[in-house]
């Protein structure tokens, strides 16, 4: 799991219900070779208040979602940040 310094071209935010779920998600991704970091996402992508997100590179979205689904850890939503704008991705 990479928390700091990872600069992804386009970041995808997989939002989690809580810090514990974010940590589980990041662990599951890490075990399967998908690098990620945990962040507090911006207000625009968390409609229920405080949350955590697992941030991955856009290129790993499909693989990450498959891994998380297999581990019964589906994110609340997946949001991509492109040119400073957020766009919700279908899960």
């Amino acid at each position, binding site marked *: 799991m990479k*928390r700091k310094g990872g600069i992804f071209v386009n970041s995808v935010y997989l939002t989690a*219900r*809580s*810090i*514990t*779920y974010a*940590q*589980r998600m990041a662990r599951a991704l890490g075990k399967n070779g998908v690098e990620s970091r*945990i*962040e*507090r996402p911006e207000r625009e992508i968390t*409609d*229920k*208040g*405080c*949350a*955590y997100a697992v941030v991955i590179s856009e290129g790993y979205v499909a693989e990450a979602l498959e891994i998380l689904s297999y581990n019964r850890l589906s994110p609340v939503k997946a949001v991509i940040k492109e040119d400073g704008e957020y766009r919700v991705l279908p899960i």
Partner: protein
Amino acid sequence: MIYLDNAATTFRKPESVYKAVANAFETCTSVGRGGYGSAMSAADVVYSAREKVWKMFGASGPEQVVFTCNATHALNIAIKGIAKEGNCVISGYEHNSVVRPVFSSGVLECRVATGRVFCPDEIVKSFERQIDGNTVFAVCTHMSNVFGYILPIKRIDEVCRRKGVPLIIDASQSAGSISIKLSELPSCVAVCMAGHKGLYGPQGTGILVCREGERLATIIEGGTGSVSREFLQPEFMPDRLECGTHNVPGIAGLSAGISYVKEKGEGVILRKERRFIAEVCRELRKISGVRVFCGNDVFLQGGVVSFISDRMSAERIANELNDEKIAVRSGFHCSPLAHETVGTQEGTVRVSVSDFTEENEINSFLESVKKILGK
């Protein structure tokens, strides 16, 4: 001081525990309250502890592990969270941390499953008799904090499974020396335990391990660092049952304590404790007027033993031992029900060991008791 009150709290801890506590104090702030380094360090420490508990106690995932202030806190969450109208059945060896929450939980009747100490068949039959169609839950300790009696928890779980009654287990005295796994106990919905006894964590730590899908009502609500715009407590675990600032240094120490137990092996620790308890039983029995409570079967007793003397009260024996700088516990050990079950209404002297107890300490204790009771 010779410390033989490890059933209250283990006094000596592994060196790694002290270091982990100090390190957490220096590097960690609060879990789930920010994305900055020290908050994430705290989150990592707590999550790592959660993973260890999850694996050790056979939960379905780390989110089913709830960190509490102590075993009493964990038992209150489980008992009050599951209680509803009907009766509940508890063993005759329960601590007040079970009895008192049960009596204020709103259940209509509390039944006691009894049986002579170190007679497992009797208590299994009693649970069988006491549980009926109106029983809403049962509670059983894994090991008596007074007598060290290891209750037949798998058989009691099986009775509960057949009768469709959820079981709460108090593993405060057994955790760290006797393996217990939620995954092997189909009727068990919660295992509650202290973190500061056989798991060698600091005081002020406890654990509640919950079965997935078991929705317990909350007894406290508050900040979780999640879904904060909602006025109701989250439905998901552990946030549903774990709110407010975590005891991060305590959990860090507990995590190190669990690692120590796993590296050493629960069976190895138990065998050492049993060897000392067997020695204590053997020698105390030689003293005139002393009654020692120990089982004929070594597998029925852990690292705790109680005794009484017809020459001197339990309190006086403990006070005289204290004068010799030997710490034992006297009285009721917060478990009057266990004394009622066994018939020791005047209380007992309790001796309890840990992995840090040494042979020479047991010898010194025995010499002192012989001197005191030989007066």
